[in-house]
């Protein structure tokens, strides 16, 4: 089920909310949580019920392995063995569903043979719920998860606002909120703020992201024919599309969760205002960056083992980040670019040379934009053709013939303007139940539903992960 669908907005979400808070009001607190878990699993299986057993099995396995780890003596070797078993199992599960065919295709190329690929459908959200649970296992090893019961754990993994595409939540951030008694009563401030945030996200996705998507898709569909200006427009359109699409989704997730009195972590903080690659990764998909930092970069040694090792750790972390996004060499290159970007940034910092803020933003945005070409392209060839055109290898034509939609211009102007204004998280912080926000909310509801009634099926980009 998509957040941007009538069945979610008009049926699933209100019914889940009403029943949840009604049960809590009747002091059937455990039943309310079971209801919420059931609703979340229903939400997941709307996509394909065949994979419901998979997420259930994953939750049960990880919970009990984590609980077992927590109960084993600290000094015992078994503890580490269990952790290894748990993490490897999760990685193998992810590897099988997401990377098997990539592996087979590469073996075919290396061996010069044609190995048959497997008919595997990637289960929805597997990258997200696998990473969340690996974090849980790691923390179990550190002994900070002993007090969770299965219901709370299951809700943490399956809570529908964040289940499909994040934000990647940490158990320590969410489970205490789920358990807290006062969160089980309806809070009209949170309901209102959640609604406000949800519809901001819906409008970002449907109005701005989908408009830029049309331009980006047109460009990538005819990449061979793009001129200089057209290839820049295509790449920038995608950069804007991706931001509004993914941050819009995160806003909707945060908004929906807030209605249940659960505060999910911020996931975006105006990433295109970043003044360096390091700054960018503190603003873009923040929960993924935190995961990569805490569970890959720091365990590898972080910056504590010398400069060369730090650079290696940075590169490794971002190669993992790249491959997490997709089973393809273009994603690996994208990750590697960011890894190298961070290395170069560290070296630059050591030089102690300052840079004008706007120059820094300009350089950072262009680096990120160039890297997005690999992220979006379906092949190296396509990426290289577009990048070649962007750098004038086929001339510097300013003709624009690849995309005509006069009606999308106002929306695009608004989208670009919004990039420079306060982001939705700041707006949420400033939310207050007054007439101004009432008017904004009503306007966004009407606009959001208008645009929702104007599209075909429009999925979120991060659904492929």
């Amino acid at each position: 089920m998509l957040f941007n669908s009538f069945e979610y907005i008009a049926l699933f979400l209100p019914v889940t909310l009403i029943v949840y808070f009604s049960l809590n009001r009747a002091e059937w607190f455990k039943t309310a949580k079971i209801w919420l878990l059931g609703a979340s699993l229903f939400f997941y299986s709307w996509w394909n019920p065949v994979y419901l057993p998979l997420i259930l099995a994953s939750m049960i396995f990880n919970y009990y392995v984590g609980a077992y780890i927590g109960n084993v003596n600290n000094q015992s070797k078994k503890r580490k063995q269990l952790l290894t078993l748990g993490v490897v199992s999760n990685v193998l599960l992810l590897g099988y569903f997401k990377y098997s065919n990539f592996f087979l295709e590469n073996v075919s190329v290396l061996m010069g043979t044609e190995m048959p690929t497997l008919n595997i459908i990637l289960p929805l959200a597997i990258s997200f719920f696998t990473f969340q649970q690996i974090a849980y296992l790691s923390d179990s090893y550190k002994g900070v998860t002993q007090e969770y019961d299965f219901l709370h754990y299951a809700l943490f993994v399956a809570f529908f606002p964040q289940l499909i595409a994040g934000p990647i939540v940490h158990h320590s951030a969410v489970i205490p909120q789920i358990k807290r008694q006062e969160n089980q009563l309806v809070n009209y401030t949170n309901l209102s703020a959640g609604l406000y945030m949800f519809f901001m996200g819906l409008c970002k996705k449907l109005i701005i992201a989908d408009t830029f998507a049309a331009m980006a898709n047109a460009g990538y569909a005819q990449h061979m024919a793009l001129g200089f200006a057209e290839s820049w427009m295509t790449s920038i359109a995608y950069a804007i599309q991706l931001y509004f699409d993914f941050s819009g989704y995160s806003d909707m997730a945060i908004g929906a969760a807030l209605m249940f009195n659960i505060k999910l972590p911020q996931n975006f903080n105006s990433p295109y205002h970043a003044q360096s690659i390091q700054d960018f990764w503190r603003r873009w998909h923040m929960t993924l960056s935190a995961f990569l930092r805490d569970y890959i970069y720091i365990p590898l040694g972080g910056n504590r083992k010398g400069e060369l090792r730090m650079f290696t750790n940075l590169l490794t972390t971002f190669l993992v980040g790249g491959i997490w996004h997709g089973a393809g060499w273009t994603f690996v290159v994208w990750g590697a670019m960011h890894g190298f970007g961070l290395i170069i940034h560290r070296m630059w910092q050591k030089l102690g040379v300052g840079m004008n803020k706007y120059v820094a933003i300009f350089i950072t945005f262009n680096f990120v934009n160039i890297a997005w070409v690999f992220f979006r392209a379906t092949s190296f060839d396509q990426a290289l053709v577009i990048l070649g055109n962007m750098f004038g290898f086929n001339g510097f034509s300013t003709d624009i013939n690849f995309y005509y939609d006069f009606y999308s211009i106002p929306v695009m102007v608004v989208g670009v303007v919004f990039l420079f204004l306060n982001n939705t998280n700041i707006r949420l912080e400033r939310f207050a139940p007054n007439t101004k926000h009432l008017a904004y909310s009503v306007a966004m509801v009407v606009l959001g539903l208008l645009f929702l009634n104007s599209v075909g099926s429009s999925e979120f980009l991060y659904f492929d992960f």
Partner: protein
Amino acid sequence: MEPKRYFFSTITGSLLAIATFVSFNYLMDQYGAFRPEAKSVKVFADERSGKFLLAQNYVPTNFKSFMLGPSLSANIDTKAYPESKIYNASVMGANISEMRILGEQLLKEGVNETVYISLSPYIFKDHGPKTDLMNDNQKYAIYGSTKLLKSYFLRAVRELELLPSKYAKDIINDYGYHNYNLEMGCENSQITIQGKLGEEAKQEFDLNVKALEEFDEFMSLLEANDAKVVLFFSPVPTELYEHEKAAYQAFEQLIQTKIPHGAVVVNFNDPQYRSFNADYDNFIDHGHLSISGQEQVMFELINHSQLYAYEK
């Protein structure tokens, strides 16, 4: 404002705003969906979605017959024979899949006295809808959508003739007649036709297998609905037809094998129409008819539909 009051005010305000907007759209009834009786509804914006939405209620209420095809038949003026009540549901760029979507909708609503179908290799080039503008979700656009707002905007531009050369008034009239001549002329038809002789034409005759299957299924559906069917091979300028005669004739023979018994077939490329096809004044380009050309074609189609009875 107290939070509970704020929340319910937001919900109430939103519902009121939506109700107001939907009510306005109901009153405007841009696609004749709500009050279609004895109305005259034109298409102001996108032809594909416009005719699809008109096929939901306006066409079934006001017409007895319809025409299907791509742009080659979209500029045939069926309003010239108003007593026949034929709606021209042809759409620029339509393939057999899209023709079928419209045809099925109209047959389902009982519009089945006579179905005119324009045949050309173009409609069999590919298979499947080219856009998502004619799926079931689009039916709800009449209640409120960007498509509807665009239609209002263009209605104002067209009706007030603000940009007549680009957005002509009555470009698609209430009978679905798409008057290309308002936006293109036929002075250069001879040059256009002769220019086409040099182009590679083979690709026009690569027929998609699934498209042909879809045609078979549509013919069966027409039979099942007891519709009188008039199929016509779209006229091709003589020079172009002679240039690719073998391919055109192979196409015509193939399609003839798929036409159900009892259907009326008019081949506008038969020798009796040679003088028509040789006259540049009947065309605006390589296949689209001029005003005089489509008048003659329509006359022939009406005559043929009256001469033959449909036999099961």
